[in-house]
């Protein structure tokens, strides 16, 4: 336990994090590719067509994992934003800020795939339904956070202001999640449950879960890559960064 604690504290130091993230990334890449291939084969080739929607439902294997990620990343940002505000840990700021564009991208994918799915099923690309609207609002929250972060000249001040905005925006998370329960909407309710039997066939469930793992791992890959660059940028005056840069130019 003690060793883990020391390791965790060490992870907060930029040079250690830079190195560790560099080691971890290739493994996450491998996991992403394996799970994505398994999920796509399972979803696009092996799973049977839906009795009502035919083959059109197969967009679910992109849509649902992206939608989960749009909320999950916001959760990660809220926690690291809180850590950044309370303990002023530089790395927590970087994690929160570098997650935002990835989260915005997943939210955008969710909206686009959802509207492509909506056209054949509901007869319209867009409707002012509670879940669609709250997901759109989530996209605007992400954009506001990114905009606020970049509006400051001082990165650390910008990160702390944006972290504050993240925490204010947390109110939207339960609204997105429970919108299909609270309001009578066009969007279907939950079919995949953790604590109760899912009302989805197993042949369709496992590709979704594989894609869910793939998107989570991809988030890890993307976040660590972005965070490594951000760490270098912020620590540009430090010796260890100069060492990496000079070694890099020597090898090249």
């Amino acid at each position, binding site marked *: 336990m003690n060793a883990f604690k020391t390791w965790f504290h060490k992870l907060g130091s930029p040079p250690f994090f830079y190195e560790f993230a560099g080691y971890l990334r290739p493994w996450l890449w491998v996991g992403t590719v394996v799970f994505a291939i398994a999920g796509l084969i399972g979803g696009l080739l092996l799973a049977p067509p839906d009795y009502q929607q035919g083959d059109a439902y197969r967009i679910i294997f992109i849509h649902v994992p992206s939608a989960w990620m749009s909320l999950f990343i916001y959760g990660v940002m809220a926690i690291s934003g809180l850590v950044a505000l309370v303990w002023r840990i530089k790395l927590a700021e970087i994690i929160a800020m570098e997650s935002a564009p990835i989260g915005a991208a997943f939210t955008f994918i969710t909206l686009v795939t959802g509207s492509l799915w909506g056209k054949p099923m509901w007869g319209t690309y867009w409707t002012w339904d509670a879940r669609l609207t709250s997901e759109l609002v989530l996209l605007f929250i992400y954009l506001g956070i990114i905009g606020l972060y970049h*509006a400051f000249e001082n990165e650390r001040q910008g990160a702390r202001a944006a972290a504050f905005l993240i925490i204010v925006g947390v109110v939207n998370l339960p609204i997105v999640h429970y919108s299909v329960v609270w309001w009578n909407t066009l969007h279907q309710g939950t079919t995949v449950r953790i604590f109760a039997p899912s009302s989805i066939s197993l042949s369709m469930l496992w590709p979704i879960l594989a894609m869910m793992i793939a998107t989570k791992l991809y988030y890890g890959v993307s976040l660590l890559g972005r965070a490594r660059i951000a760490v270098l940028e912020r620590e540009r005056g430090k010796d260890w960064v100069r060492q990496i840069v000079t070694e890099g130019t020597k090898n090249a």
Partner: protein
Amino acid sequence: MTSPSLFSGFLAILQRDLLLAWRRRGDAAMPVLYAMIVAILFPFALGPDHQLLARVSGGIVLVTVLLAMLLALDNLFRSDLEDGVLAQMVLAPQSLSFLMAARILAYWLVTACPLLIAGPILGYMLGLPAQAQPVLFLALVLSSALLALLGSMLAALTAGTRRSGMLLSLMLLPLIVPVVIFAAGAVSAVEQGLPWIAPLAWLSATLALTLVLAPVACATALRITLDA
């Protein structure tokens, strides 16, 4: 030496802000003019169809008034940050959140009150049914107060940045969407003869909660901006 009380600090800030607004009366008229211009353009864009205008008038007035309030929001803290008044407020013996509450109250009085008078007139011009007028007024009071509280928190966050007008609207949109939904819901409910008290009760409950939390959040945001 006795330190001045909490309430005297609150009153001093309120008095100062109202006096400053009174000295620059022309600025306070700008949001009203803006709201009138936008609302007057709608009948030209939609055509003078009475039934159509009557149906959308409540929503138009609501959105116009809230957008007009945004005009004054960007400068809420900017000049005080530049000449160092905000730094003095942070150093003051009174709690910063109380001083912020006074500032927000002054902002609401100066910006929202003229709009609250103009709103029902614009509603009448657009053909809002007479029985909906009191509900629209109530919805305007509640939603403008909510916008003042939420908006000033975000204005405090962006005060330290160079240009924040568009950014402020982008950040405010997600927070103000539920307010607009409930306020417009009350107006359209009364137009259809349905009970309208529930959405207004929701708004009032949110206002009570925001009234307590927003000044504290505003003070926190200001400390981040000042890096204090």
